[in-house]
């Protein structure tokens, strides 16, 4: 009996020890602080991206309102520039599709809600010809930034045809709805990050599935793969079964600015990886610093940076004087080259990084093998 009593005491002591030890902080300064990393991501990258995006989309929305009252070529120009500016800023925010920008219930990720491409021309055309629509239905390929692009840019560059098309009340109405919708969706996310979600993000500082680091990392990799597969791969006709290139699958083909956005996307993924804040010159902790601190990480940093340089070089070698649509058909070699370099980068971002950092990819009864 006494033995059992001792056992109970020892067990209680152990439990007490576990609880009290939870309060201890690691004092070793060399150990990477994940909370600092999350803070830099949140304050240096995510929030500035959404804040700027909100401002730009608000401007776009306002310009759309004034444009439709009196469509002329100057205002159309301003509208188009505003759109370009906003969509450029989107390239900063398109890798953060978790939390308030993630999928929940019937709401898809922010990316899917406001930036689906290619858009469905047939659907949009029927709407501007007087058809009904509902911004909350599943026709996401008739909404968002690229649907707006379809309405305000002409792929043959003729401004007059665009101006004339806005004599249609249905088209006017739809444009206003679309710009408002994009602004509204962004506002929800931006408000959350400026509100309580930031705290939640910083507190959830483990590496298990559902943790901030895991969600952030997984979306980062998804964004990289989307860049490679959807912005380049599919237009280049690289899926098995595709027999030729398809310029219809390009991002932003109506404005002809696909290359600009592609390069921005690459550049921003690189900034995120480095932890370099969007609006500051002071570098902060990113995946690079995280890797520097773990077993096998330094070697991965070297390989990753080296290959990323090849990617950026390949991107810069793509001619800027012709649209991607033209290049796909006439001279796809530089695009193919970029695709190949992105392909080579995949393992460094995907399996190597998650393995070395111990970040969970999925939630399931583990990889208990």
């Amino acid at each position, binding site marked *: 009996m006494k*033995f059992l009593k001792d*056992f109970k005491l*020892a*067990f209680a002591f*152990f439990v007490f*020890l*576990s*609880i009290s*030890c*939870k309060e*201890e902080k*690691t*004092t*070793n300064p*060399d*150990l*990477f602080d*994940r909370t600092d990393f999350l803070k830099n991501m949140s304050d240096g990258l995510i929030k500035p991206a959404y804040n700027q995006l909100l401002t730009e989309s608000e401007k776009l929305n306002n310009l759309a309102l004034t444009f439709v009252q009196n469509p002329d070529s100057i205002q159309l120009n301003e509208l188009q520039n505003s759109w370009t500016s906003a969509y450029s800023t989107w390239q900063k925010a398109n890798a953060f599709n978790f939390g308030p920008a993630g999928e929940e219930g019937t709401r898809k990720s922010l990316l899917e809600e406001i930036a689906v491409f290619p858009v469905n021309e047939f659907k949009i055309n029927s709407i501007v010809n007087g058809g009904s629509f509902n911004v909350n239905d599943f026709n996401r390929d008739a909404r968002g930034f690229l649907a707006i692009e379809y309405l305000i840019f002409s792929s043959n560059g003729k401004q007059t045809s665009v101006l004339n098309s806005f004599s249609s009340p249905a088209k006017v109405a739809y444009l206003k709805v679309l710009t408002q919708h994009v602004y509204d969706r962004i506002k929800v996310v931006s408000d959350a990050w400026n509100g309580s979600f930031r705290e939640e993000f910083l507190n959830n*500082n*483990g*590496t*298990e*599935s559902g943790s901030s680091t895991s969600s952030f990392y997984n979306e980062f990799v998804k964004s990289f793969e989307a860049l490679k*597969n959807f912005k380049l*791969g599919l237009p280049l006709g*690289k*899926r*098995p*079964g*595709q*027999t030729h290139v398809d310029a219809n699958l390009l991002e932003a083909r109506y404005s002809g600015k696909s290359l600009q956005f592609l390069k921005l996307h690459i550049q921003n993924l690189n900034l995120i990886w480095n932890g370099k804040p969007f609006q500051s010159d002071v570098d902060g902790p990113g995946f690079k610093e995280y890797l520097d*601190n*773990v*077993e*096998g*990480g330094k*070697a*991965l940093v070297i*390989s990753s940076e080296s290959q990323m340089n090849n990617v950026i070089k390949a991107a810069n070698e793509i001619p800027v004087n012709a649209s991607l649509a033209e290049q796909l058909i006439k001279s796809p070699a530089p695009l193919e080259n970029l695709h190949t370099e992105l*392909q080579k980068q*995949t*393992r460094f971002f*995907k*399996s*190597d990084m998650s*393995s*070395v*950092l*111990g*970040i*969970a*990819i*999925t*939630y*399931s*009864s*583990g*990889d*208990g*093998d």
Partner: protein
Amino acid sequence: MSGFIQKLSRAQSFVSNPVSAAPFVVLRMVFGLLMFAGTLRFLLLGWVEDHYLAPKFHFHYFGFSWIEPLPALGMYLVHFLLLMASLTFISGYFYRFSAIVLFLTFTYTELIDLTYYLNHYYFVSLACLLFCIAPKPSKSVIWPQFGEIPFWGIGMFKLLLGLVYLYAGLAKINSTWLLDALPLKIWLPAQDKLPIIGSLISHKWTPYFFSWAGMVYDCFIVLFLSWKRTRIWAYFAVIFFHAITGLMFQIGVFPSVMVGATLVFFSPGWHERILQKLKLFYENKLFLNNCINKDLKPKSSSFIPGFLFLFFIFQIVFPWRYFLYPGNIFWTEEGYRFSWRVMLMEKAGTAQFYVKDSKSGREGLVENREFLNAHQEKQMAMQPDMILQFAHFLGKHYAEKGVQNPMVRAEVFVTLNGKPSQLLIDDQIDLMKIEDSWVPKMWINRYEE
């Protein structure tokens, strides 16, 4: 020869020796409870949908390609049966029938997709199988309250647990685990927020300590559980070990299963006190199987000793089959499964499949997530037999889509224990021309240390 026969008959009488049935009854109830809780958790997490219904493709176990998931209603029915069977199993009603249902339903769900193979699921299947042939407690003069059971009814579970822990320990005796403290050196820093462990992370010796402690624990725990003097402290270690690993890794119900199963090592007296507290006696119709007429009678008595002999010979020998394969077992994974290699390596891969139209020569890149969920993709990318299966699926799929005589190759980069990734397999070979078998896979590249 007669000396041998004498030993054999002495052994036979030893294993048939009646002992108190209390440990068996408690084990049955605990195991049934774990099966119920585990199945309920599985259902509530929505994993029936995620694992069995949503995926377009399932990875088969070798020799079990005929196993397919049922449609939604069927799969939920199977899990409902699992729940019901665990309840009747706990109660002892229709005991043997419940054990058989448990074994068949659980093993069926496991065989659907190789992706979710886990050593502790394998253990659960084996335990269910043993329960199917376990002797029923019978009326006893010596133990009137709880009945009696031949020793082997309890001994076989102790032996199985002993083998599981011992092999898990032996698997840890390798230079990577002990001398490099890998993969714990990678896994522990990610746990810096845990109690106790978190504060130890900053020390360089921590992964080494945990690696050696883990190995020693696995190799010797069953011994210490078996000796009365060390039992209570050994069980304390069991709780501690499995609680810590349960916190550190996403390993589901594994800790609970081991903490529950190892109770079988406690003395009959200890179990009797538990049953007494719960007022569960042999005559209690609700909890101690008395439905003799309704249960399936066990087969003739010569079947069971033979079956158990083969069962344990298999358990002892099968884990050593990796010797028959060349190369680094962590890399090739030939002979890796079903040998209690638990949480032994950090491995991940990126697999890019290329499908070429033989007629036009045009080669395309496959988007894995079009067909696989994240979990499937992760497991596939580091296991050659799964890579091969997926390649064949892709060939068949794209042939149906119009690709002429598809040739499928895969560029698979794998990182092992934090080392720079290397190509796992020959990235030029046409995987459509290769069939899976037990013969060594010569298309797996050599691992460069």
